[in-house]
């Protein structure tokens, strides 16, 4: 992950009353990286994001954006940031276009052409001239992303961007985000409480629980081919195959309906199948259950408790 830090959190703390909400976060987000910010509801994701964009005061520590402190140099720091904080709320009585114009007027150098370009990018098309109050949640998300991209930020912060989107909408958003990171070298921070959603678009994932960062993982290491995975094999006759594999691989093999579940490395799979076929057994199907980050982080995060 070579590159310069787009955003740096230094011992970031937030105390409300006497209650520590965020207990010292330190990490960096690189340009061109999609960073997943994961944690159960109430873990402090949104509070952290609000501090990153200056909506909340920082009790201790600092957030540096392109080297500028959000605390001491708000204007210089925030001009590099585009964000959606929580839901993409828009002025319901203004059209999507006028909503964008409104935000464009608040930043230097956003032309009408740029607004058109962004509308094109998020695919709002003709709906842009309808009142935002009539938009579906998916359209509001797109408009939200559009307003965040207007001023070509080098850091894009999206709080739960897939909330309320249907699967095709989620896929599209994932595509934009990957594109922005890879082609425009934008650092993207995506928060979510659903790991399955963000592991597909993120390069790294930071896990936060009760205001503390408990893990930072690169998503790629999880895709390690030498790791053992559960391989489901639909084979007939089942008992014969089971006995053979148990003796061959020296492991207890479970049966799930018409499938055997074998724990094997990716490279061993062709060998196993060849042996089964050579012994006159019929193989109807093979699938590898992806070992997801979910399994890995489940113990870390624990249940979805808000404390």
């Amino acid at each position, binding site marked *: 992950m070579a590159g310069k830090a787009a955003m740096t959190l230094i011992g970031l703390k937030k105390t409300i009353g006497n209650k520590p909400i965020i207990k010292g976060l330190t990490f960096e987000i690189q340009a061109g990286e999609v960073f997943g910010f994961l944690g159960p509801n109430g873990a402090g994701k949104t509070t952290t994001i609000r501090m990153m964009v200056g909506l909340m005061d920082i009790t201790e520590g600092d957030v540096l954006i392109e080297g500028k402190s959000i605390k001491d140099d708000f204007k210089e720091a925030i001009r590099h940031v585009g964000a959606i904080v929580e839901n993409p*709320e828009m002025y*319901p*009585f203004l059209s999507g276009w006028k909503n964008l114009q409104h*935000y464009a007027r608040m930043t230097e150098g956003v032309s009408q052409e740029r607004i058109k370009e962004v509308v094109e990018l998020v695919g709002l098309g003709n709906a842009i001239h309808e009142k935002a109050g009539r938009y579906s949640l998916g359209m509001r998300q797109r408009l939200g992303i559009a307003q965040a991209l207007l001023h070509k930020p080098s850091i894009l912060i999206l709080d739960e961007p897939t909330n309320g989107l249907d699967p095709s909408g989620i896929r599209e958003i994932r595509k934009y985000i990957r594109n922005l990171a890879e082609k425009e070298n934008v650092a993207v921070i995506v928060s979510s409480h659903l790991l399955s959603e963000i592991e597909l678009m993120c390069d790294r994932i930071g896990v936060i629980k009760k205001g503390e960062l408990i893990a930072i993982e690169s998503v790629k290491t999880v895709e390690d081919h030498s790791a053992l995975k559960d391989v489901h094999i639909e084979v007939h006759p089942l008992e014969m195959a089971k006995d053979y594999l148990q003796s061959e691989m020296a492991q207890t093999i479970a049966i799930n309906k018409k499938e055997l579940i074998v724990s094997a490395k990716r490279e061993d799979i062709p060998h196993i199948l060849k042996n089964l076929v050579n012994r006159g057994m019929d193989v109807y199907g093979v699938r590898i259950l992806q070992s997801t980050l979910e399994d890995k982080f489940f113990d870390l995060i624990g249940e979805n408790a808000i404390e």
Partner: protein
Amino acid sequence: MNNFLKLVWNEQIKLYAQKSTWIMIVLIAAIVLGTGLLAKFMGSGIATEEYGADWQTELQEENAALAKEMEEDEFAGFANPFVIQKNEYYLENDIKPLPYDGWEYVLENAALTSLLSLFTIIVAAGIVSNEFKWGTIKLLLIRPISRTKILLSKYVSVLLFALTLLVSMLAASWIVGALLFGLNGASPMIVQETSSGFEQTSVLKEILQGYGFGMVTLVMMATFAFMISTIFRSSGMAIGLAIFLMMAGNALVAFVSQYSWSKYILFANTNLGQYFNGSEPMIEGMTLAFSLSILAIYFFIFLAAAWTAFTKRDIAGN
């Protein structure tokens, strides 16, 4: 500065994109037209007839009739002496009374500035708190613009809205008045009652004073509502409190006027008319300079409180 004007422009767009704003403007036009029509066709005591060449005799006859009416009808004693005295002023000073006209109608509508205050309070109470209600405050405050500037642009927008309403009302009153009652020239002189008797003054001066004094209450109460809504993020509370105080303020001051501290109450000072036309101030020892200072102090306290709340606050929750 350019950038500040854009912020004000944004606020104006948001304001006029809302139906409620247009309802206020239509209501003002309707009320102006309505009172004009009522005065024209159902009003009594409005001298729309022009006096003839022998107006002195006409006035004397009128006074005699009024005096006779007073003997017969005891209720006539309330209004008639005023008309008789006014007529006598005309006779003594050899001024031919002018018929009621559009200028006087504009002047009478100065009473409607309380309606402008009401509408401005509603706008002032919503302009900050609505951003919180809509959730748009989060997107508004993550731009490279200081919170101070954003708050100021909203406040300036409120004042601009008040000015727009005022100009619309003046224009509507003048047009309706001119159409219904005609105009006695570009700037006629009228006879007004003051504490030291009747006096002839320019109608333009009277209009300027009438509306000007109304604007003092408007600006103070709108600023008050702006402060309350910025601190508590609730437009309902701000509207309720501001209107209640505007209505009850004078009664409140009257209630405690025997104490010397009562002159420091805002509402003892909002009516600057008490220093003009020879009237006595509400509480002894008050002067125009005193009231202006008190008003300025309240004004800055309101704005400082709103500013502190807005710039220091964590934007959390919805």
